[in-house]
């Protein structure tokens, strides 16, 4: 089949889950509840089949070349498509190839339907299809299918009337409500539709629409147990925190649109004349034009906007010049303004705007992908049913942020990449440390997700596009596996608390083995340089790129990224195996729960086995061919990003990803990185064994020894408290103030006004007196007291100890003075 069918096939694959949603929404009330589940599962299965068809077509026209991603060249092999699609009168798109004949384009872009054109603003429903799109389609549909099947078993309680023991009504009895089986699958279908639409989107406006759809679906699903207060709050939190990020994304979108005048990603030949006029060029070819060897170029519009002052100065200097003269002058000066003069030392107009646009887009991804400092919503999102957690935290919602960074990779300037790398590194470390102390099985996995997303962002930020995207795919596989396994455990013991589990592997061997596979995969264990599970490959790629970045720049700070990534690998291995050992190994800690535990039904463990196979082999090459996910993704590398990028404001260089894989750097980058990854993972595993299996180290003693650190991790670095104190409470106070004003105005009565004044006074007394004045004083007193208490321990009152201190002090002083004098 021809590639002309791709948009159609993928379009249908997107629409099928929407149809399922509509069907359950309208007809669901007359069906048996279980029918809705079957419809949704069937729909996502159909989408999966269509995605596989699309993959087959794609591979038919884009064979993954021998050693594709080890290509020695530093420039892209395939230039970005000059292929355009247009909507014909009959609606069937067709391809027109221009440029070099016989060159297979690496991406197809076009419009399904044009919504409207308002001056320069053109809104359309478009698509942008490259290897990344196809891979994401297959990953999302496959994982979503597994989760749907699993949910058919997991959600069976919802088939009948449910008694929710976590909700107590006013009369003290638990809540009883009708089951919401169909409703659950209705939301799941909408969720899948949103995510698939996001992946297929051909312009940022569409991305934003689906982006918000994903957000609202996650809101529905996290708040599925709407009667529980915690679930309500978690859903609100997820939604509101995401809005914070989306605000930045809107700014980025506006900056891009004002500079480029288009929302579309790729070049779209709208009038169908076979050539691409300037008005038909997409963002990617504008930012990295072929005329400049696909180097990052500040678009004319942004340069114009930023260089207005120069123009004004020129007009003042030449009062006699006409508007046409000014136009000519500006056009002549444009390249100079863009590149900072002929020698590149002057001011680069517009570069700052481009950086701002990149950071703005990244802000949205920070919210969606739960990066620091907006990571707080994700662990709370565990209030949703476990299949939702698996879906939200592996292949769909959080993946959307990383996907968008990968999609927009061509637009990011070096400075924006640095911001991404720093954010990723901080997130990775922060979340990993919190995961060490968490005792809720799903929260450990949630923080692990945050940490792994930090890995992806770090990889993207140091120039590892392939590394980040491959980790996105492999992580989707093993993280959904881990979540479904944890769901199976929770289903068996009816508790999330790791402290009441233990010794479960006898009771539920399939869950134990599949989860162990997931742990090994996420820890990146394998035989160094020979073979490993999927996580081994993607984590190695990330470490290699980080090491390559450090070697390229040499400085102490550039090496920090590698250190954080390597340290994070050790912590990852530690907390994942801690989880497994606590849940499955050792003696049962709660005999009652252990006695009632049982292996899950077949409908639940078959998806586990399927996903475990993926977690093992997702990064392997297909036996007997060169086909692998990495090779496929390499085809989708954004044009021009394979070249080395140098910062304008920061003195750093982003090495090409091919540098790390060139044969010459095998010994200097690949081998050290692989060995470091292996050593750190084994160290983490060994520590987990020493603490939770053999008992050489007592976890309780260790946590006592490092009590302050433990408290820091246990309280999640006090981020929730910080936000509550810094944002939530002031906003709450402000809202209350507004409400008070409102009632005062409605009453329009002096009395009410007086009462409002009273309330303001009380508020100020609370804020200024109690909090601003009393608060610091009380806290200072408390600190002094605590300091005194801690210093008191130094004074043991033991004479002999004092004498020893004295002697040691004398010796030390003598040694120091003899060393330095």
């Amino acid at each position, binding site marked *: 089949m021809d590639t002309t069918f791709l948009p159609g096939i993928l379009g249908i694959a997107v629409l099928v889950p929407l149809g399922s949603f509509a069907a359950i929404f309208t007809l669901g009330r007359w069906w048996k509840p279980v029918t809705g589940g079957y419809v949704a599962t069937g729909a996502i299965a159909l989408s999966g089949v269509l995605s596989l068809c699309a993959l087959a077509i794609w591979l038919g026209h884009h064979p993954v070349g021998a050693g594709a991603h080890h290509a020695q060249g530093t420039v892209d092999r395939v230039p970005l498509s000059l292929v355009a699609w247009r909507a014909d009168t009959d609606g069937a798109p067709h391809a027109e190839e221009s440029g070099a004949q016989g060159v297979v384009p690496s991406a197809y872009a076009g419009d399904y339907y044009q919504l409207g054109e308002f001056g320069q603003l053109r809104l359309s429903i478009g698509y942008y299809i490259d290897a990344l799109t196809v891979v994401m389609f297959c990953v999302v549909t496959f994982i979503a299918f597994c989760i749907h099947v699993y949910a058919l078993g997991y959600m069976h309680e919802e088939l009948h009337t449910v008694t929710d023991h976590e909700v107590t009504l006013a009369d003290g009895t638990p809540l009883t409500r009708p089951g919401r089986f169909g409703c659950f699958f209705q939301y799941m279908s909408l969720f899948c539709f949103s995510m698939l639409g996001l992946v297929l989107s051909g312009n940022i406006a569409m991305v934003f629409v689906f982006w918000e759809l994903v957000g609202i679906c996650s809101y529905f699903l996290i708040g599925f147990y709407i009667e529980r207060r915690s679930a309500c709050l978690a859903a609100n939190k997820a939604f509101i925190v995401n809005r914070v990020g989306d605000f930045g994304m809107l700014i980025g979108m506006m900056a891009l649109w004002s500079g480029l005048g288009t929302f579309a990603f790729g070049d779209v030949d709208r009038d169908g004349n076979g050539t691409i006029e300037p008005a038909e060029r997409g963002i990617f070819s504008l930012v990295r034009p072929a005329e400049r060897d696909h180097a990052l170029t500040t678009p004319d519009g942004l340069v114009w906007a930023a260089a207005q002052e120069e123009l004004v100065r020129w007009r003042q200097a030449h009062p006699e010049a006409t508007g046409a003269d000014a136009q000519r002058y500006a056009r002549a000066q444009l390249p100079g303004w863009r590149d900072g003069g002929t020698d590149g030392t002057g001011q680069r107009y517009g570069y700052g705007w481009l950086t701002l646009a990149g950071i703005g887009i990244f802000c949205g991804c920070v919210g969606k992908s739960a990066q620091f400092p907006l990571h707080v919503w994700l662990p709370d999102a565990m209030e949703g049913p476990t299949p939702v957690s698996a879906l939200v935290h592996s292949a769909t919602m959080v993946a959307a942020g990383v996907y968008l960074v990968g999609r927009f990779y061509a637009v990011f300037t070096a400075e924006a990449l640095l911001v991404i790398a720093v954010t990723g590194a901080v997130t990775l470390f922060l979340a990993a440390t919190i995961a060490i102390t968490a005792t809720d099985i799903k929260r450990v996995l949630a923080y692990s997700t945050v940490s792994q997303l930090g890995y992806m962002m770090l990889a993207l930020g140091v120039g590892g596009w392939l590394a980040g995207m491959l980790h996105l795919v492999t992580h989707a596989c093993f993280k959904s596996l881990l979540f479904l396994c944890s769901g199976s455990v929770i289903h068996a013991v009816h508790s999330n608390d790791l402290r009441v589990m233990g010794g479960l592997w006898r009771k539920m061997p399939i869950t134990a083995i599949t989860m162990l596979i997931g742990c090994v995969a996420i820890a990146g264990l394998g035989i160094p340089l020979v073979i490993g599970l999927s996580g081994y490959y993607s984590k190695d790629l990330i470490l290699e790129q980080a090491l390559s970045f450090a070697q390229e720049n040499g400085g102490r700070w550039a090496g920090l990224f590698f250190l954080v990534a390597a340290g994070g690998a050790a912590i990852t291995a530690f907390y994942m195996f801690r989880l497994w050992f606590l849940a499955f190994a050792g003696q049962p800690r709660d005999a009652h729960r252990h006695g009632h535990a049982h292996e899950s039904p077949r409908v639940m463990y078959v998806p586990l086995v399927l996903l475990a196979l993926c977690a093992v082999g997702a990064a392997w090459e297909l036996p007997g061919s060169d086909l692998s996910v990495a090779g496929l993704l390499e085809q989708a590398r954004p044009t021009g990003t394979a070249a080395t990028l140098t910062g304008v404001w920061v003195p750093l260089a982003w090495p090409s990803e091919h540098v790390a894989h060139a044969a010459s750097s095998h010994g200097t980058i690949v081998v050290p990185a692989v060995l470091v990854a292996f050593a750190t993972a084994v160290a983490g595993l060994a520590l987990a064994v020493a603490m939770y299996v053999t008992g050489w180290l007592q976890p309780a003693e260790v946590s006592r020894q490092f009590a302050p650190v433990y408290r820091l991790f246990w309280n999640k670095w006090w981020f929730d408290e910080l936000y509550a104190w810094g944002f939530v409470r002031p906003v709450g106070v402000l809202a209350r103030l507004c409400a008070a004003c409102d009632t005062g105005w409605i009453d329009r009565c002096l009395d009410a006004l007086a009462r409002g004044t009273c309330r303001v006074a009380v508020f100020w007394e609370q804020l200024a007196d109690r909090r601003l004045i009393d608060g610091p004083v009380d806290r200072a007193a408390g600190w002094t007291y605590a300091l005194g208490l801690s210093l008191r321990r130094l004074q043991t009152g033991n004479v002999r100890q004092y004498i*020893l201190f004295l002697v040691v002090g004398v*010796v030390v002083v*003598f040694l120091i003075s003899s060393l330095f004098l």
Partner: protein
Amino acid sequence: MTLLGTIDWYAWFFGLFALLASVFAAAVLLTNNIVRMAFYLTLSLGATAGLFFLAGAEFVGAMQLMIYVGGTLVLLVFGVMLTAQATFIVMRPRSGEWVAALLAGSLLLGLLIATAWGVRPWREPRPTGALALAEGQSATAVGAALTGVRVDRLGDPAAPEGPSRTYSRSGYLFPFLIVSVHLLVVLVGAAYLARPRVEQPVRAEGRSP
């Protein structure tokens, strides 16, 4: 006789007294019985007095025997007798403290001995032959110094002229007075501290029967 004549008797006696002093000091450290401790301390201090004699400080040696061995130790033995609860009461420290003390002590000992041999003038012997017994410090010189006259510095040409010369010749009269008063105060204070208290309503249970 010739054999005896070849022996450096000075070194021999120094070795004897040094060994006695060190061994009994170690015995003080190692025994747990307080009475034996006091006894070994007496012997160690006596041997030290011998070292003083050998070093030519006869007056200090005599005072060591009189004040220290005769006075201070008697005080200590009184203390032992007044505080003895049972015949052989044993108060051992924890083994960890022993280890720590051994470590710190060996460090300090190494440091001090390294210092003792680290200074060149200290480890070079005095040129032989020029020594006469009269050069020893007699009690007269010490006593005169305590009353403010430095007999040994009378003909010191190195001392500068003027008031500073007078100062350099001045003895230890003032410190001697201070120490005397200090001793008096201390003794009065000690007597006050150690006096038996007649009534003690609060801690009555804490008193010895």
